[in-house]
């Protein structure tokens, strides 16, 4: 081993030690809050993600309760039921869909900037089949959103609409009641992090929760009124599977753990860990999430911080940091604005490998089923380079 690599190894150990200490301090501080409190609503009158979604910790198809909330407390009005209440599916199935059309202005510098594109961002259909004894089968089938239409001059594998079909989620779940134990097996994201909608945010993209990174998993957990725990083992979609199932990202196998406490109907604190091992690298990561809702001011603070140790096979390792800190203001029903700061540092040992992002997101829900979203995002690297993104998005859910 050369002197340089030896020095690097010593630095790695120091950085890892500091990172582990910081993480431990955060977890210990957080653990002092680990007390049970009555369950009250946060901003929408609902405290558990699994109340509004069929999935135990949120994401995916919304439940009848969630559809009611969509019309009653989240949007300016309307009927949030499937097909706006025109037809009610039989009790053994719940259906839905998400459709997004987006326009982007991506300022990258130079005479061609900004790049302007309009594209179908999402077209997903959902089904939740109910079986006896608390079992259900959950499916999402949709179209991979394509930002830039394939140009024959540059080629690419995705050339037709049928190439783009994908099932991001398909899993069997046992969840006999809203609270209590559950188990599920299939393809989905194991519970981790804030689970924000925007996949471009660093705390999703660089923690194994990016777009189309859903692995196959086996999970179990317990949901109580004021706390919940989730544990999962997962493995990447095998490369031999058809494109319809293929995922993105490191082909890792591993496990996750997530525990959340809720306080006073206005705050939640979670700790989390994830181990992912692939042929070319291994990642060991842990972090914490927090949310606080101040009802008089209609403000919510939310944040996530993760430390990631990536060990690269055949090479050295690096310690990374990812965070999201946001402030959401909900002045009136149906309107919310979020200011956020994101940080991602590729290697804590190397200066100028950091990325900063400043986001302003406005979400307007004029009617149940409809969302109009505006996002402004400035990314600024530690070395001074930057990029600016503006996005206008129309979202309709069935």
């Amino acid at each position, binding site marked *: 081993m050369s002197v340089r690599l030896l020095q690097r190894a010593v630095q790695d150990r120091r950085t890892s030690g500091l990172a582990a200490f910081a993480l431990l301090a955060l977890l210990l501080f957080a653990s002092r809050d680990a007390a049970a409190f009555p369950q009250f609503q946060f901003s929408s009158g609902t405290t558990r993600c699994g109340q509004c979604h069929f999935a135990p910790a949120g994401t995916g198809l919304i439940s009848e309760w969630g559809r009611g909330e969509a019309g009653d407390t989240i949007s300016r009005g309307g009927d949030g039921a499937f097909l706006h209440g025109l037809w009610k599916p039989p009790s053994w199935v719940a259906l839905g869909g998400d459709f997004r059309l987006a326009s982007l202005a991506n300022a990258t510098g*130079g005479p061609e900037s900004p790049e302007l594109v309009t594209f179908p961002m999402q077209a997903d259909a959902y089904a939740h089949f109910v079986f006896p004894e608390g079992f259900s089968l959950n499916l999402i089938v949709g179209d991979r959103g394509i930002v830039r239409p394939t140009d024959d001059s540059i*080629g690419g594998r995705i050339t037709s609409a049928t190439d783009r079909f994908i099932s991001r989620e398909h899993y069997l779940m046992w969840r006999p009641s809203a609270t209590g134990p559950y188990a599920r097996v299939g393809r989905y994201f194991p519970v981790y992090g804030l689970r924000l909608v925007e996949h471009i945010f660093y705390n999703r993209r660089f923690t194994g929760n990016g777009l189309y990174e859903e692995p196959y998993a086996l999970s179990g957990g317990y949901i109580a009124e004021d706390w919940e725990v989730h544990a999962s083992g997962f493995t990447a979609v095998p490369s031999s599977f058809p494109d319809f199932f293929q995922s993105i990202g490191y082909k890792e196998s591993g496990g996750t753990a997530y525990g959340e406490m809720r306080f006073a109907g206005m705050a939640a604190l979670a700790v989390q860990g994830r181990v992912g091992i692939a042929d070319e690298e291994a990642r060991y990561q842990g972090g914490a999430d927090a949310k606080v809702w101040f009802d008089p001011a209609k403000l919510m603070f939310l*944040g996530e911080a993760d430390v990631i140790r990536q060990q690269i096979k055949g090479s*050295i390792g690096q310690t990374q940091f990812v*965070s999201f800190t946001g402030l959401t203001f909900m002045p009136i029903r149906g309107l919310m604005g979020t200011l956020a700061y994101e940080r991602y540092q*590729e290697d804590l*040992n190397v200066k100028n*490998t950091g990325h900063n992002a400043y986001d302003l997101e406005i979400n307007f829900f004029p009617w149940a089923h409809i969302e109009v979203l505006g996002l402004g995002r400035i990314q600024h690297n530690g070395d001074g*380079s930057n990029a600016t993104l503006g996005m206008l998005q129309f979202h309709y859910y069935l």
Partner: protein
Amino acid sequence: MTVGTTPSRWRAGRVAVVLVLVGVAGVTAGCGNSTDDRPPTWSFVSTAILQPNCATANCHSAIAQRASVDLSTRSSGYSSLVGRHFVITRASVAVDGGAPLVTDDQRVERSQVINLMHAQGNLRMPPDMPLPETDIQLVASWIRAGAEND
């Protein structure tokens, strides 16, 4: 909404303090040495820089392969970049009388992958977020060192 008890509000306040720490940690995480001693090898460059930044859903993942470039693994990435001449290896340079016709610095200058990373406008890679210059220089160092599959 039901209002929480005073002790519960204190605990909620502690959660708020954690949030502030998260933010502070984010700001102060910009530490590190000004000397980049990461190894200029393909195993590191591919896994640490190119895969997370370039092998994304719409771009150079195995499923998308924009411009027929698949950077999702070391082997596919090396084949894509070298095979399509986005990177000029030392071994591919013709030799005249024992001396290469193109110097190491010239190979870096002529490697399209570096030019694309430095480009402005729609050609810049990655299009959504520029790579830090530190990362680009590490890729350049790998090319300068021969651009081997090491």
